[in-house]
C-alpha cells in the first residue's frame, strides 16, 4: 500500500497553480505588481480592441529578430507621435480615419540613373517582404518592441542607381492638410522632412516598412510607407513617404529646423548624450507595470555591433 506522507513543506492541493494561471503568469504577475487590488479592476480585462488592418501575405520571418515579446498591438497603435494628425499621443489614432493611404506614389529624384514617379506596389513587389522584430526608442525616453513588415531600404534604393554625387538621401512626408489636421497649424514646418547619409540608408537594418503585426500599417503609424531605423530615435523614421531624393549635401530635417539645440541630424540612440528634456540613459517600456524601474537604454538602442562602424571616429557628443 502506498501511503503518501505529507511533509510540512509539501504544497497542499489548494496551493497548486491551475495551468491557465501558470500559462498567463507573466501578465498576471505584472498586473498584480501594478498595484495590488488594482489588478482586479475591469480596466485590466476590457481594454478597447482597435479595428485590425488587412493581413499581408508572403512574409518571411527575419532570423535576427529580437527574442522579446512584442508590445501589445493596442499600445503601439494608440500612443503615437505623428504631429500631422495632432500633437497629443492619442490624436493620430483618433484623427487619422479620413486619411487615404491608397493609391500611393513616390517621387524619386536627384543623383540617380533612374528617377520618376513610382507606384508603391511597384517599389515593394520586386523584394521579399520580411517581418522584423525591432526595438523602437522615442527621444522622449519611452520604447516598445514591434514586429515590422518591410523590405531592406538599401535594396530598393540600389535599383535607382545612385550616382557618385549622391551622398545623402532626403525623405518627405505627404502634405495633405485637408486629411491631416495637425498640418493646419504651423508648429512644425510642413511637410515633414528627414534625411540619412547614403551609407546609413544602405545599411541592412534600415527597413522600408509597409506593415506591422502582420498587417498593413495603420494610418496613425505612418501608412502606407515609412522608414524604420531601429538604432535612431523614432522621429528619424519618417512616415507616409511621398518623396525620396538622392542629394549631395546634408538635407534639412524637421526637428532640427524646429529646435536645433535639441535634435541633431544623426539622432542615434545614445544613453551617454543627454537631452535637455529627457534622460537618455533609461527608458520606459510601454506595457511595463505601473510601479517598475525604468530600463537602461543600450548604445545605438542595442544595435551597436551592427551600426557602430558607420560612426567610427565621429564625436557623437557633438554630432548628436
Amino acid at each position, binding site marked *: 500500500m502506498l501511503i503518501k506522507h505529507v511533509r510540512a513543506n509539501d504544497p497542499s492541493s489548494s496551493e497548486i497553480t491551475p495551468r491557465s494561471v501558470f500559462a498567463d503568469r507573466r501578465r498576471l504577475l505584472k498586473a498584480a505588481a501594478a498595484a495590488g487590488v488594482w489588478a482586479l479592476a475591469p480596466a485590466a480585462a476590457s481594454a478597447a480592441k482597435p479595428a485590425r488592418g488587412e493581413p499581408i501575405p508572403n512574409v518571411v520571418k527575419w532570423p535576427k529578430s529580437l527574442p522579446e515579446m512584442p508590445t501589445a498591438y493596442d499600445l*503601439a497603435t494608440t*500612443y503615437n507621435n505623428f*504631429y500631422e494628425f495632432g*500633437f497629443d*499621443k492619442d490624436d493620430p489614432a483618433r484623427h487619422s480615419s479620413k486619411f487615404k493611404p491608397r493609391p500611393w506614389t513616390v517621387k524619386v529624384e536627384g543623383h540617380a540613373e533612374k528617377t520618376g514617379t513610382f507606384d508603391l506596389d511597384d517599389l515593394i513587389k520586386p523584394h521579399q517582404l520580411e517581418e522584423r522584430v525591432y526595438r523602437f526608442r522615442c527621444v522622449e525616453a519611452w520604447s516598445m518592441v514591434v514586429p515590422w513588415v518591410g523590405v531592406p531600404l538599401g535594396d530598393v534604393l540600389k535599383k535607382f542607381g545612385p550616382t557618385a554625387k549622391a551622398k545623402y538621401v532626403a525623405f518627405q512626408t505627404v502634405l495633405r492638410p485637408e486629411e491631416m489636421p495637425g498640418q493646419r497649424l504651423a*508648429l512644425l514646418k510642413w511637410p515633414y522632412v528627414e534625411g540619412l547619409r547614403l551609407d546609413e540608408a544602405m545599411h541592412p537594418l534600415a527597413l522600408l516598412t509597409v506593415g506591422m503585426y502582420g498587417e498593413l500599417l495603420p494610418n496613425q503609424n505612418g501608412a502606407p510607407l515609412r522608414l524604420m531605423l531601429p538604432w535612431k530615435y523614432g522621429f528619424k523614421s519618417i512616415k507616409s513617404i511621398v518623396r525620396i531624393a538622392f542629394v549631395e549635401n546634408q538635407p534639412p530635417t524637421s526637428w532640427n529646423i524646429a529646435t536645433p539645440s535639441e535634435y541633431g541630424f544623426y539622432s542615434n540612440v545614445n544613453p551617454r548624450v543627454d537631452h535637455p*528634456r529627457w534622460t537618455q*540613459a*533609461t527608458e520606459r517600456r510601454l506595457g511595463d507595470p505601473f510601479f517598475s524601474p*525604468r530600463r537602461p537604454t543600450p548604445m545605438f538602442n542595442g544595435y551597436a555591433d551592427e551600426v557602430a562602424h558607420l560612426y567610427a571616429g565621429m564625436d557623437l557628443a557633438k554630432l548628436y
Partner: protein
Amino acid sequence: MTRFAKPIVFALCLLPLAWLAHKGWTAGFGAHPQEYVNRFLGDWALRFLLLALAVTPLRQIGDWPQLARFRRMIGLYAFFYVVLHVSSYVVATHFFDWAAIWKDIVKRNYITVGMAVFVMLLPLAATSTAAMVKRLGAARWKKLHRLVYLAGIGGVFHFFMMVKLDWREPLLYAVLLAFLLGYRAFKRLRRA
C-alpha cells in the same frame, strides 16, 4: 446654505482625483500610464494654484466677500495636487531612482523650476493654520505668503519649458496668470 458651502467646495476640489481613480479603475491610463498620471496631476496642481490666486481678484471685482473663506482651502488643495504630482514623479516616473531624480533636478531646467515651486509652497502650507498666522503676526504672514506669486510664475514656466512644441496650453495659463498678478500690481500702483 452657507453652512454647507465649505464641505461642498471641499468635495468639488476632490473631483479631479476621483475622476483619475475612476478612469484608472474602469479604462486604465493608456499606453504610458506613468506619464498620464503625472501630467494629469500636474495640470490640476497648476489649475488649483491659479484658482487660489483668483480668489482675491474675484472677491474684489465681483464684490463677493464670502469668497475669502475658501482661499485657504483652495490654496491647500493646490499644495495637495502638487504633492501628488511630485510623488507620482518620484514613484511612477523614476521608481525611487534618487540618483536619476537628482540629476534631473540639476540638469533639466523645467524640473529645477518645478522643484523650486514645490519647495516654495512648503512653508506656505506649513503656516496655513490660524495658530501659525497668530504666531507670525498678520504682517509677516502676509509678506511670507506673497511667495505664492513667485510659485505661480514658476508653475507656468515649468509647464512652458516642459512642452516640446505645442505651447498653446501653457500660453493660456500664462495669460490668466498675467491677469491675476497684473490686477494686483495695478491696485498697488493706484494706492501708491
